[in-house]
């Protein structure tokens, strides 16, 4: 074929191919792919197994991974000296609990606030603090090592900016994600938007999935 004809037919061929491709998508000719449900957060499939850890709960008791078993846990990392982001997120989680309760999806859920600031957030302080947002909320903290080990496995970042002269008035950079732990104590989802309705919708979809 002479060169000039290739230049003539190539664009026509490409255009025809593009139209064909578009039609096949548009008319639904492609077989439906099997996809996990679309949730606003991130679904972790398969759920991520987490190594055992030792935290200290609000009554000063050890808190091991076993406590996560047999129920769904909404988990949030923060610190009580946080003036607005932590309270806002806990308020949203409080509303989520009310929504789930109304829909009878709340019998098997727990809510845990983990303070990454054990130097200032003593267990008792955590109890008072979390109960204010919702009576179902519990608080825990731990040694710097245990907290770091757990947070790292869960993809949670935090950094204590302990540079203040008096060593008390420091702030903590921290991930704002809410995590969902499944009844086998594995990481199942990460919510980066904290609208209670969005998290409730995501949780409903996750409950409908076949067990992993």
């Amino acid at each position: 074929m002479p060169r000039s004809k290739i230049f003539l037919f190539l664009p026509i061929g490409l255009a025809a191919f593009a139209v064909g491709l578009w039609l096949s998508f548009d008319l639904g000719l492609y077989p439906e792919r099997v996809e996990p449900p679309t949730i606003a957060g991130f679904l972790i499939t398969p759920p991520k197994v987490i190594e055992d850890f030792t935290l200290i709960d609000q009554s000063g008791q050890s808190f091991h991974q076993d406590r996560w078993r047999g129920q769904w846990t909404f988990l949030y990392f923060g610190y009580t000296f946080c003036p607005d982001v932590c309270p806002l997120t806990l308020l949203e989680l409080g509303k989520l609990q009310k929504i789930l309760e109304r829909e009878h999806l709340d019998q098997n859920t727990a809510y845990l606030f983990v303070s990454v600031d054990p130097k200032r957030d003593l267990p008792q302080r955590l109890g008072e603090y979390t109960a204010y947002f919702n009576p179902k909320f519990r608080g825990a903290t731990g040694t710097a090592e245990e907290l770091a080990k757990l947070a790292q496995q869960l993809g949670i970042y935090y950094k204590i900016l302990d540079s203040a002269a008096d060593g008390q008035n420091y702030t903590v950079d921290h991930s704002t994600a809410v995590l969902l732990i499944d009844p086998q104590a594995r990481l199942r989802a990460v919510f980066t938007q904290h609208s209670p309705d969005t998290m409730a919708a995501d949780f409903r979809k996750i409950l409908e999935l076949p067990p992993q």
Partner: protein
Amino acid sequence: MKKTAWLLLSALCVPFTPALAAEPGAIQIETPWARESPPAAANGAAYMTLVNTGGETDHLLSASGEVAETVELHTHLMENNVMKMRKVEAIEVAHGEPTVLRPGGLHIMLIGLKKPLVAGQTFPLTLRFEKAGETSVQVTVRGKDAAAMPDGHAHHQ
């Protein structure tokens, strides 16, 4: 004579400015508020909307008050879902665009509250602006379910 009449007239007008807006020079301060303290919370934050009604850009340089041991100007930076709270030296208040201090953003940080903030109560803060000078505002403490933008200023975002 005419001049005196005008002065008198403008003096009469002062009490009729809206109650919400304290006016230090060319800066209007709308709905100063704070959320009540959760138990055991040592810190708090105050929010408000600053409107520059003059022609020149102004800056909020500092805030002070008896409510807390330390009062600072802060902002929040969200990077990869990590929230970083940082002190800022000043908050710009440009003409035309209201500067909104709100949860998750710019705020007046109250470090070491002397007493918990209780819903329904108010506390004074003194704000110092570069051009408009000093002014005092009463900050209203709202309950825990106070919306992030209680004054309907969401459209400024």
